């Protein structure tokens, strides 16, 4: 078995795995970071998003080896990030999930968006969610939650 070193949630992790394995499986199975979800394996739904060097990145179909040397942050560590924590609070305040399967990806996308644009208008929020799907119909609440988080961050 090959081995691989990845920087995940601020920690260097040595993992025994085939570097061709998509990152999502490594996170979920080798590191027990199951927050990111497999929705399609085709980079079509966004449920698997994680932050890579601060930017939301789909990882269901990209080999883990490609992420060596990059800073990977998963939903599990987002509470430690001021922007991420604000997004999480806003999702709760807006009741912005039903089944919650797509939510981790959306929280990651929102965090990535607000890091790049602290005061996005509605169009910018929608553009930031372009790679994401939701089936329960929480869309409006998600958009409202991101607006709320932006306001909260702006007020600090």
């Amino acid at each position, binding site marked *: 078995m090959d081995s691989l070193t990845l920087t995940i949630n601020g920690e260097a992790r040595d993992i025994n795995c*085939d570097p061709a*394995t*998509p990152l999502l*499986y490594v996170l*979920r*199975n080798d590191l*027990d*970071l*199951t*927050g*990111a*979800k*497999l*929705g*399609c*394996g*085709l980079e*079509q*739904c966004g*449920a698997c998003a994680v932050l890579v060097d601060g930017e939301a990145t789909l990882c269901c179909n990209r080999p883990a080896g490609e992420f060596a040397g990059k800073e990977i942050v*998963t*939903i*599990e560590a*987002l*509470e430690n990030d001021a922007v991420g924590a604000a*997004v*999480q609070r806003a*999702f*709760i*305040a807006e*009741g912005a*999930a*039903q*089944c*919650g*399967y*797509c*939510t*981790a990806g959306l*929280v990651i996308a929102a965090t990535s968006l607000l890091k790049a644009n602290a005061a996005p208008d509605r169009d910018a929020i*929608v553009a930031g*969610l*372009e790679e*994401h*799907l*939701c*089936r*329960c*119909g*929480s*869309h*409006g*609440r*998600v*958009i409202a939650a991101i607006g709320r988080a932006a306001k909260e961050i702006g007020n600090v």
Partner: protein
Amino acid sequence: MSKSVFSSPSLAKHPGLDEWVSVGADGRISIHSGKVDIGQRISTALAMIAAEELDVPLDRIDMVRTATGEAPDEGITSGSNSMMESGSAVRLATATARRHMLALAAEQLGVDADTLEVDDGLIQSRDTNRSVTYEEIQGDKPFGVDVDPDVDVKDPETHKIVGEKIAPLGLSEIVTGSYRFLHDMKLPGMLHARVVRPPHYNARLKGMNDETADRLRQSGIDIVQDGSFIAVVGANEYAVIQAAERLFAACDWDTSGALSENDVFESLTANPRESRPVENDGVPQDKPVPPLADPPENASATLETRYDKPYHAHASMGPSASCAIWQEDGLQLWSHSQGVYFLRDAVAEAFDIDPETVRIEHIPGAGCYGHNGADDVAFDAALVARALPGKPVLLKWTREEEHAWAPYATATSMKLRASLDADGKVIDWNHESYGDTFNMRPRSGPNMAGAARLLSGRFRENPPPEFVPQPAMVRHMGIHRNLDPLYVFPNKRLVKNLVRDLPLRTSALRTLGAFGNVFAIESFMDELAEAAGIDPVTFRLNHLEDTRGREVLEAVAARMDFNADDGIGRGIAFAQYKNLKAYAAVGVELEVNDAAEVILKRAVLAGDAGEIVDRDGTAAQYDGGFLQAASWTISEQVTWDRDGITSRDWETYPILGFDNVPEIETILIERPGVPFLGAGEAVSGPAGAAIANAIYNATGLRLRRIPFTPDAIRAAAMDA
């Protein structure tokens, strides 16, 4: 306290208070329900009801996971029934529990029970300063009494928790990634499995390249085979996925039973069918269908038309999954099925084992919205686990499987004809609906009826006899759900047609036939209103006596400016789900742009679901239900050719994205103390019709076949 108007059929089967409520020695209250969380937040509502009746804070309530043999058997979590069935049962049970504990406390404290007050589980007498806690009285002890169906419940005016907007249970875990879905299960020694599916429903295995199979086995992959059911199993999930792909390529399939490529909308009215007249507010009758009479002589106008909707997929965000262990003393399954008891009996039937030796525990999956792949994947996991006794097996479907193999909502056609008199009143009404069955959940019965409806059963070496669905005869079930309009029309002729020999596998999707029927009725109401020269709201009110129905319709109408001249199309529609459950009126504002795309601008939703428990959860069922139905209406249709399903992912089965989300205003009518109606499916039918009516208002194009894609709109414009 007030006299309860709440009643629950669940209590007939599970009358014992201990089946619903238990108090721990630590003072925590456990609530047992047979209804499961599928994103609709039922656990939150049940916990709120329990906390309210027991005078404890919400965080002292534990909602116990539903498992067969332990939880009350409340059938399926479906049909907007959970609040009426489980919500009412939990209210009566916790009210009985409170009264029981207060009586014991009164005895112990030597005071009259009427003088006792409860605060956070501390029972205190107003007359003395003595007190006792719930756990001191009842901790870890059985109640040993039945739930009193006539128990006094809290006066809604005193409610402190019920009716409030609170954060749903589990949401803080969901946003931090610690919420455990079934897909996240990990057990010691657990193996991963994937199914190697044939190309389509009718394909069967002819042979397999032994060399490939041997190579896979040498690499540590187990191959489980039973006829044309094939699965691969191993310790490494990604290696298993790759093995499944390799083995599929090494299989030789007999694909001679190609799928019919006939136009399904022709087949719906041309194929053999079982027809039943529907009378008495939605009940099919076992008698011949009366012939269609000529319009009445005083008819000033008669309209006749047909509406269609395609096959729709549940299209859950997470492909279905299940975990199984086959042990000497029985089978343990973890499943996100909506009906663990039904599934248990069907699985037992398939293996010819005692249902009592099968235990199924519910663990949440992605939202299912009906009979998706949840039950099928559990049987798949059981088939694999049986071949590898003692080993836990987590089997997940792929995106392709969820899209191509889970049951669909049938395509339906609705043929309507109605006549108006000179005053614009409807004087006769004909509505015939045509579709395949919605009723293929694995409910056990004679001739292995449960096993026969589990997908992989039909691919086994010895498949169960084919299950031939019969017309559902229950009120507002299946094809005839909401076929009977709530409006007061004379001379109604209503017919349901269960159509045979249709190409795709179908079962229950949110609202069953109601989505198509309400889409048709409420589109037709606008067509009739125009023929009568009466505005759509007045025309509806002229035929609607139900006061709660009128109230939601008027609430939406008051917020819509139908006379605005701003290029925005406006439409309205209304229904009461099953003429029995929650009411919904929907107003839509939209534009049809130059690319013939429907752009949703604003939606106004008014709902009456009886007493509101979880305020935000109820609103979420309305606004989420609207967006899902808007997606069905604008974007979605299952496609196939002779070689199988061709809508196999999110590109070939596109759903509504974040770029077409209207501003939504949801108004909930306050009905404290009035029985729960259940909110999950009320809005879907009106949503589809309101969009159709708004498109007509915007463009003059009357679209009668869903989905309203740019192609469909351009085609309608060419015909106009």
